[in-house]
């Protein structure tokens, strides 16, 4: 099944260099502390670290024991302690408490903190305030780009989303700019750049500044990657909030892909052990189904199983020599494929169990209704019921946000009642969650002008709830049409379906959402690449509230080869979903492009909602 690339599609650059660079730097840093040492690793860094340097490499460089940084006192007996952490204040307090405990016990050890990807002044401040700055040596491990796959680079910074889009904290922008700068020094300058969003703009400007300061190095080089497109997550929240139905996305939604690998529990492996599986292009079976709509996957897998059986069956009637050949050359490959196949079939079954239930279908139906903008009242009651029944809190929140964004905010009555229901179901601390969501623009109240709300609130005090609701509805119909709808119309995001959408042979990027919706982010990228600028998209940009924030920076001189011009890097600030990746991969196959994805982290609706949720400690 899996569609092959067009024969003229360009080769992807080799990103394994990034891994080697990171590894060498880490080794260098470890060697800076000669002798045996214990390494304390922050939980979030463990998986990325594992992809760069495994335990045996660490041991080679005299790392004795490994500990996780957690809120427990450590029992290390080593004379040298090395901490590998993200630059977070929490971690600094952990280090400080350890050092101070040693001081009290009259013990002197060597401490080294390695910040990844960079150190922040605030962290050093905390060390200073805690009185241990002089005892600790600080270093930076500039490891900001992890190649998760041949076409996917992740910065592994899930907190980027909350830090920037909620807290307005711009500290990671520098990291992004540095990462882009690194890419341009390794893979040549990017001749054509496009972007949209505030964070994008700031990162881009900072990146340019870095390039200017160090110019000369990249100037003479031929560009390998012809285009780069930067995009803020808040330009398109809708896509990220939808349930994913492409296999890779579904696996992520169901089992949570972490740093390019997934832990399949006993329900998948049908044994009592869980299995960690690396999901990337090297997994031949996975590679063929990752971008498929889920409805095709099972059929494909069973076909594959039959083929495999046929391969095995060839054994029969072989003479000894052929058999020897078979065992030495093919059997291993077949066994490997067999193993992978059974894993994915297991995963499929497990997903089917969860997702083909009526609930899920209703959910998808509601989502599609929201995207298309009909039966809003029905969808609203569906959401309400979901909350009343104490369905997953994250799911409820997601639907509310989807409703809010597609409708340009909830009408005040719904806004209040849904929130009340939500608080009753899941606890009062979510009052803060709502405040977060409002700040991020994910869940807002329709504002038909402040005067109207004031009138309305007065009216609602006078009359019964029901009447008030009607009045509110009347008011809200006065409000302008939702931005999302307008954009959707302009960009034709909801494909008109004549008859059944054939998910086996996708026509457009909408297939990643069962043919109901073309991801906005991907459509924007498609349109801009076609025009090689934002020209003609002014209205869309205005509707996205990005008037000053969309830019095109195209170099006139044509040093780029036609091959490189079909290589496009898409940078998602705030995370991208597997559905978007699949959609763009599809677009690439159609147009003979290859896309490279750079994201602050791979995300999905649940991760976005969790980032906004307030949880009791």
């Amino acid at each position, binding site marked *: 099944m899996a569609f092959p690339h067009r024969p003229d599609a360009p080769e992807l650059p080799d990103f394994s260099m990034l891994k080697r660079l990171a590894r060498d730097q880490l080794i260098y840093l470890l060697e800076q502390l000669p002798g045996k040492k214990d390494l304390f690793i922050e939980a979030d860094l463990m998986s990325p670290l594992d992809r760069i340097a495994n335990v045996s490499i660490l041991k080679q460089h005299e790392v004795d024991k490994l500990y996780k940084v957690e809120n427990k006192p450590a029992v290390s007996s080593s004379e040298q302690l090395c901490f590998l952490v993200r630059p977070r*204040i*929490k971690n600094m307090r952990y280090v400080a408490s350890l050092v101070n405990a040693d001081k009290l016990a009259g013990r002197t050890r060597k401490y080294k903190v390695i910040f990844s990807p960079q150190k*922040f*002044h*605030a962290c050093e*401040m*905390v060390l200073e*305030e805690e009185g241990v700055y002089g005892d600790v040596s600080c270093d930076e491990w500039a490891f900001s780009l992890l190649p998760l796959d041949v076409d996917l680079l992740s910065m592994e910074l899930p907190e980027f989303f909350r*830090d920037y889009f909620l*807290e*307005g*904290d*711009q*500290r990671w*922008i*520098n990291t992004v*700019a540095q990462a882009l700068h690194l890419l341009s020094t390794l893979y040549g300058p990017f001749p054509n750049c496009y972007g949209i969003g505030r964070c994008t703009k*700031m990162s881009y*400007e*900072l990146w340019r*500044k870095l390039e*200017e*300061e160090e*110019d000369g190095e990249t100037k003479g080089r031929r560009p390998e990657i012809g285009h780069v497109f930067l995009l803020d997550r808040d330009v398109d929240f809708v896509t990220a909030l939808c349930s994913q139905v492409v296999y890779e996305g579904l696996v992520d939604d169901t089992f949570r892909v972490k740093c390019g690998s997934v832990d399949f529990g006993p329900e998948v492996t049908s044994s009592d052990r869980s299995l960690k599986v690396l999901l990337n292009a090297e997994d031949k079976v996975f590679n063929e189904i990752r971008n498929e709509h889920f409805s095709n996957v099972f059929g494909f897998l069973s076909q594959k199983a039959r083929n495999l059986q046929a391969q095995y069956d060839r054994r029969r009637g072989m003479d000894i020599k052929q058999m020897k050949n078979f065992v030495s050359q093919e059997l291993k490959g077949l066994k490997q494929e067999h193993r992978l196949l059974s894993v994915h079939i297991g995963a499929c079954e497990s997903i089917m169990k969860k997702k083909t239930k*009526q609930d899920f279908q209703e959910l998808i139906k509601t989502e599609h209704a929201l995207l298309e903008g009909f039966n809003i009242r029905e969808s609203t009651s569906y959401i*309400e*019921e979901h909350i*009343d*029944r*104490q369905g997953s809190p994250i799911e409820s929140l997601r639907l509310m946000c989807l409703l809010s964004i597609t409708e340009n905010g909830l009408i005040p009555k719904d806004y*209040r009642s849904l*929130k*009340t*229901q939500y*608080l*009753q*179901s*899941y*606890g*009062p*601390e979510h*009052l*803060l969650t709502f*405040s977060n969501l409002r700040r991020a623009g994910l869940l807002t109240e329709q504002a038909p002008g402040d005067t109207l709300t004031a009138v309305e609130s007065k009216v609602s005090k006078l009359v019964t709830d029901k009447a008030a609701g009607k009045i509110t509805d009347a008011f809200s119909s006065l409000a302008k049409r939702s931005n999302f709808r307008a954009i959707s119309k302009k960009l034709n995001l909801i494909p008109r379906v004549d008859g059944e959408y054939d998910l086996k042979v996708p026509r457009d990027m909408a297939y990643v959402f069962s043919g109901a919706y073309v991801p906005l982010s991907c459509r924007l990228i498609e349109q801009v690449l076609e025009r090689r600028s934002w020209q003609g998209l002014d209205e869309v940009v205005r509707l996205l509230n990005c008037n000053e924030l969309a830019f095109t920076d195209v170099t006139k001189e044509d040093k780029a080869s036609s091959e490189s011009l079909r290589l496009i890097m898409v940078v998602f600030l705030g995370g991208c979903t597997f559905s978007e990746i699949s959609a763009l991969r599809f677009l690439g196959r159609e147009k003979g492009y290859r896309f490279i994805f750079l994201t602050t982290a791979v995300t999905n609706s649940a991760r976005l909602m969790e980032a906004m949720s*307030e949880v*009791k*400690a």
Partner: protein
Amino acid sequence: MDCYTANWNPLGDSAFYRKYELYSMDWDLKEELRDCLVAAAPYGGPIALLRNPWRKEKAASVRPVLEIYSASGLPLASLLWKSGPVVSLGWSAEEELLCVQEDGVVLVYGLHGDFRRHFSMGNEVLQNRVLDARIFHTEFGSGVAILTGAHRFTLSANVGDLKLRRMPEVPGLQSAPSCWTTLCQDRVAHILLAVGPDLYLLDHAACSAVTPPGLAPGVSSFLQMAVSFTYRHLALFTDTGYIWMGTASLKEKLCEFNCNIRAPPKQMVWCSRPRSKERAVVVAWERRLMVVGDAPESIQFVLDEDSYLVPELDGVRIFSRSTHEFLHEVPVASEEIFKIASMAPGALLLEAQKEYEKESQKADEYLREIQELGQLTQAVQQCIEAAGHEHRPDMQKSLLRAASFGKCFLDRFPPDSFVRMCQDLRVLNAIRDYHIGIPLTYSQYKQLTIQVLLDRLVLRRLYPLAIQICEYLRLPEVQGVSRILAHWACYKVQQKDVSDEDVARAINQKLGDTPGVSYSDIAARAYGCGRTELAIKLLEYEPRSGEQVPLLLKMKRSKLALSKAIESGDTDLVFTVLLHLKNELNRGDFFMTLRNQPMALSLYRQFCKHQELETLKDLYNQDDNHQELGSFHIRASYAAEERIEGRVAALQSAADAFYKAKNEFAAKATEDQMRLLRLQRRLEDELGGRFVDLSLHDTVTTLVLGGHSKRAEQLARDFRIPDKRLWWLKLTALADLEDWEELEKFSKSKKSPIGYLPFVEICMKQHNKYEAKKYASRVGPEQKVKALLLVGDVAQAADVAIEHRNEAELTLVLSHCTGATDAATADKIQRARAQAQKK
């Protein structure tokens, strides 16, 4: 050419030494050299003179004058010496003049007599006074060695990074050593000293007596010692007029010489060339100069005047009141070419070229001769090399012309050596000029490197020449022109008689956007001279706002610094400024500043959230940000407070804040939560179990599960739980309890607001088909088919669907028809369909 070798003096069989004039000096010396402390920097550096009034113990009241001249005798600076008695002068590698005072304080002056800094050589030196001092050069920089009145040595190997080292005592040393010197071996500085007939070597740890191998007997005292430029060789002059020459490690003797002069020499220095086998020492007395080496005879010169020797890498400079000369061993290439009757290829080539110019056919003969021997390449190389060692431009030219001529007859002679030599010579001739006065030889120039040479030109404020050299050599801008321009600008800002505007404009005009120029460095210099306004003006030209910040902070322009930091996009920088501001301003002003800078504010908030919660509260208070303040209290209500009373109080504060923020919804919700919390507490007291921190929904569920239906109802009423929710809740809870009886009772209590399909679903979830069927019959018509399918009654579902004539329902039922048992039903449906279509 006969006269060319006239100034060549043979030493032994294999080497010639020549002495030629660099400059005729017309410095107007007021004093005799012998009355002065003299210091001349190596590599053609400047000369410092300080008439030494203290030594003569006469009119100490007369303040001496410190004078600095270029190597060509042009005055660079002259200043009245106002500090204490000076024992020794010396130049550092950076061409700074170090003046060692008797009290151990070392004053550092620039080339132009500008005072830079001072440092002390320690208390011990201060107490015992300085008897003698030496400035020496190592690979780390320039060092100072001091002999104190207590006959102890103190040294610092690098005055840039001052670490004083007190050397161990020499046992039984009663008087000052007759002579001493610093040695530098294995990157460590040692001191070699002579006391009577004995030699001692001092290192950090110990003092050891040493004996030079092969030293002639009868020595009762060493009068003078000299170390070579590279610290590799050592020469000792004894009271018997005997000179011992050997390696500095004192392991090997090279040669010896007896000059039969017992008077102590004024100076003795090595004169050798890198990579040469010849070793020679130049010894100077009052009126006599002698070059001695591994030969029975020495070369002797008469000195007409007081002279001073400056050892160089490849020779010795000798200057006096009227001349400045250079004495060195004739380099091999020159010797080969110019030696009388030389038949070396280079010599022949030079000859050939001369004949060619005379249009004589002899040119061809010579050329053939070289070519027959296949030595033309070598000849060209020789000529090029020899040109480099010539001081006079006319000689350089004729040698280069010869090389160029020879090149014509060579097929593939790489041109770069020739081109580079032409360029180098052009640079050398330019800097040797009388006005510039840096008499570098070719070897010295190569050793020094062009970068250092440029630095030295900059140090002499010869900016135009330096820029011309950069442009001529096409050096990259960052290393060359822009660096020099930056230096120029730093000098320019010190001109106090020019107005700020003019200086800033002049600098910007010259520098423009030259890459590699740091305006902030220049501004820092301007600020250093006390010109804050100028510094700010200059900073405006700095394109990297990140670079502006530290200086702005230093100049106490913190608010400007803050906006620049924000402009730079570097959050660390912003944070640095913030902390600075926090300490500098009072709290109110600080908050006000933050208020106008949202990016800084959010950064600081993030920090406070983790580190200073109280400050965060103050921040919100200051801003009248009641919404956030409310959120803050909410968070505190479950994160910081343990006791119910505390939590309720926190919630009350939150509710108040929400009211102020006109967020009635949040206020009401908070009040509800207060109520709930109190109630939960009561429930815990009365019923036991855990209620606190449960959501309203969960609280009611817990009550139902615990069999407290009444209470549950009451709570639902109190908190106005909508009917739908309550039904869902009870339904789920009762099914969980598997209390089917109660469930049925409940279902009949009134008409279900959520329909009866959920009842079917939940029973099936608990695998109770029996109960499910009970409710399936009560499900409304729209959902009937679904309900029947759920309980597995496909046949009846089909009937209902057919009755409804609903296509979607039919399809749904059909999809549930599996296996043989449902075959009949499937048939039925197909028939119904067909019928419907007919109609």
